[in-house]
């Protein structure tokens, strides 16, 4: 079925169009983004349960972007009366004028930016989905998750709990300018199993998930993950610390995704990359809302730019980066559909969507057989990058020791993988045929501005510094 567009947004659209028209009297550029996204979160464990109607992307509200004299300003609100758009227009003018007065008083200079183009575009995209979050049988879902939780709890003598979390969101966004009327509706869902185990005072979590631009039917796929993730958590209870050093590593698709995300997030200096840095020619990487169907796949971004498939690296050579519309205007390049807001209250930044390494032609077994001494790294906890200096930090759940081409059964945890991105990507020597994406987490800019992203790729063999 098609995910239906919000009747609420359809109803207020005429009022919002009038708001754009009224503000056009005072400003060179006016756009409005309105959202009406609904969903739920069900959290079930052996010890506590909860259900609410919130997810990372549930929201209802609007934001107006205006430009005058080279300065862009925004007004975000969620008490809009479509029969009186002149009241919102007046309030936007009033509060922004107050800020302009303060800026003048403090002698603040303006970063002069041209007026955004406003090419005509009319779009109404209601994407395919299964069940809608708002029509989900929550009673059945709670029972299903409870059964999985009980099964996970029973699967280990060391288990003290097994948490399940299921979230589904029906996103509806409306973008309007004088020449644009763009409306999109889609559903994405994500679910995780997190067993909690303890032994001799040591407490460890396991983590496995499912995600996709699909409805709550996706949660059925969690069932097969319950026992394996409990086993992974048990392994951590007896895991040793790794001896710090540089190792041959094979990273799982999940860790490949983390590397893709952290290596090419947030402001890489691309000119340096092209001129001075040689990556492995095995590396080809895509970024965009278009090439994959995952949690960060949409028809247009929060500035009304259509989704792209941007090939950032092809055969080891950096081709281009990603850009929001205002940054693109300043840099003199085309926007790539990566202008995203945490929600209507937040500013647009250039953000990642789906960031993925292309696959190769090896099998995991072939890759392991080539490792003299190293680790197979699985499970990600977090990542962080240093955009200027191109350092990378990945905290990885666990490593399985490999000696002379064979897994020894020894497990180390946790692992801090650090290094210089060009060196890390330059050392990639094998890629598997696998292609997996992961979208159960979020991505912040600095330490805020959380948005949905997905990332992934194949198993990759490389050299990395582990601690």
């Amino acid at each position, binding site marked *: 079925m098609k995910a239906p567009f919000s009747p609420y947004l359809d109803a207020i659209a005429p009022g919002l169009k009038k708001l754009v028209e009224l503000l056009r009297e005072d400003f060179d550029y006016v756009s409005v983004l309105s959202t009406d996204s609904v969903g739920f979160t069900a959290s079930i464990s052996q010890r506590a349960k909860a259900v609410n109607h919130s997810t990372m992307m549930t929201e209802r509200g609007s934001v107006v972007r205006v430009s005058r004299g080279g*300065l862009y300003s*925004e007004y975000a609100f969620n008490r809009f009366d479509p029969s009186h758009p002149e009241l919102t227009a007046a309030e936007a003018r009033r*509060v922004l004028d107050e800020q302009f007065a303060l800026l003048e008083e403090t002698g603040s*200079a303006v970063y002069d930016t041209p007026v955004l183009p406003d090419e005509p575009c009319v779009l109404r995209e209601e994407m395919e989905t299964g069940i809608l979050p708002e029509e989900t049988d929550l009673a059945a879902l709670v029972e299903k998750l409870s059964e999985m939780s009980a099964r996970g709890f029973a699967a280990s003598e060391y288990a003290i*709990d097994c948490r399940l979390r299921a979230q589904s969101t029906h996103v509806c966004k409306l973008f309007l300018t004088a020449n644009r009327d763009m409306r999109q509706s889609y559903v994405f869902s994500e679910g995780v199993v997190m067993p909690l185990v303890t032994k001799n*005072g040591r*407490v460890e979590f396991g983590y496995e998930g499912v995600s996709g631009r699909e409805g709550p039917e996706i949660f059925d796929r969690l069932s097969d993950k319950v026992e394996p993730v409990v086993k992974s958590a048990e392994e951590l209870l007896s895991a040793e610390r790794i001896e710090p050093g540089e190792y041959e590593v094979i990273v799982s698709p999940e860790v490949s995704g983390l590397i893709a995300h952290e290596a090419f997030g947030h402001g890489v200096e691309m000119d340096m990359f092209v001129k001075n840095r040689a990556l492995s020619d095995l590396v080809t990487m895509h970024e965009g809302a278009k090439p994959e169907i995952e949690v960060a796949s949409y028809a247009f971004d929060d500035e009304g730019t259509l989704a792209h498939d941007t090939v950032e690296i092809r055969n080891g050579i950096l081709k281009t980066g990603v850009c929001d519309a205002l940054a693109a205007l300043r840099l003199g390049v085309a926007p790539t559909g990566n202008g995203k807001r945490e929600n209507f209250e937040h*500013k647009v930044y250039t953000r990642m969507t789906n960031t993925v390494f292309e696959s190769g032609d090896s099998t995991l077994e072939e890759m392991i057989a080539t490792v003299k001494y190293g680790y197979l790294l699985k499970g990600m906890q977090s990542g962080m990058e240093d955009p200027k*200096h191109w350092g990378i930090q990945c905290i990885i759940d666990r490593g399985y020791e490999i000696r002379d081409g064979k897994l020894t059964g020894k497990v180390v945890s946790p692992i801090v993988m650090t290094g210089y991105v060009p060196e890390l990507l330059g050392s990639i020597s094998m890629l598997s045929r696998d292609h997996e994406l992961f979208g159960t987490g979020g991505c912040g800019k600095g330490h*805020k501005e959380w948005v949905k992203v997905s990332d992934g790729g194949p198993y990759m063999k490389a050299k990395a510094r582990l601690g």
Partner: protein
Amino acid sequence: MENFILDLLKKSGADGWAVRDEIRTGWEFYFIRHALDQNRVRETEHITLTIYRAFEEDGKKYLGSASAELAPTATETEAEKLIRSLLFEAGLIRNRAYTLNPPCGDAAPLAAAPELRTIAGDFLRAMKSVKESAEADINSYEIFTDSVCRRLVTSTGIDVTDVYPSSMAEVVVNARDDRREIELYRMYKSGSCDAAGLKANVEETLRFGRDKLRAGKTPALGKCDVVFSTDDALEIYDYYIDRMNAGMVYQGISDCEIGKAVAEDKGGDKLTVRAVKTLENSSHNGAFDDEGAPVRDMTIISGGVAENFYGRRMFAQYIGLEDSFSPGNFVVEGGGKTAAELRTGKYLEVVEFSDFQVDTASGDIAGEIRLGYLHDGDSVSVVEGGSVSGTLRELGGALRFSSEQKQYNNYLIPAVTRLCGASITGAEG
């Protein structure tokens, strides 16, 4: 908030309910260098409804709850539909029965409504006053100032309102020489603007930037003491504070017990942590918590021994606490030595991590070193790269805290913390 919401809740048949109404006005300014990139205003209202249902199954008593945000423009019909839905969903949630908070009495707001124009002006002027140089300057900064009014009304008779400011500044600085340009990141949170503190901290970060230009690679030190003198130390103290949370205890993540030591004695300073109702210029000063429990001063850990758990109503009752609350501010008392005394011998003072973390469940610590000062007697070398790792399960008992304290928004903690015997992975070799 429309009056019909309370009327609908009262006649909904729910066994309990709560409405949180948060009205927020926010002013934001984004600068590239010192040129304004964008200015923004937010005017929003967020109304959150929680419905409780008491029920019994197989002789067991439960109190389930479900919550949702109701749009401030919602009609009475929409509100009624949402409440019906929540009533049904609350009946699906089999949480062991507990009681809701009674009226807390102290309903007066702690502060007058903040004046955003004044606070924002203070931030703008403070950032302009920072001393920069050709070698190290401000790349960009973002200023957020909010005026928050939150009201909580519940079925048990709670009707309280708090008004407070909440601010944040994010600053990115650059330093450069003819070899490279580097970047350092800082985020400052507070109630209103602490202009002098902000200026001093940004200027210190510029100094760190200049130092990073001459940094060598971190050697493979093996085991080494690490000194923390920035807000990264909060991760260490949060580990112990989180483990005293009733939710962590009830769920088995924390094994802390009242009257027992929170860390194995390995000769370090003994941790004392207090929850406090107010801390000067904190953005978490409130008379009541999110569930309407009155916030008060309370010792959580005293001399390294667990004294009082704290936390949300449900988990607090599950572990036998009747009048607990979720604190907004914490004070960690200083230790027996000065910062200068802690900075002796061989140690690595890391002032910039990529992302220093302590895992609340396992106590594992991890962070890539972006800038550190390796001290060995009188010699000091500036280093970068590599990482710090270890676990507080083993290292926590040997922590040393300076007698001097430093405030980071809602935390007042020792200005210097020494973690003895961490593992240092070098950046080479």
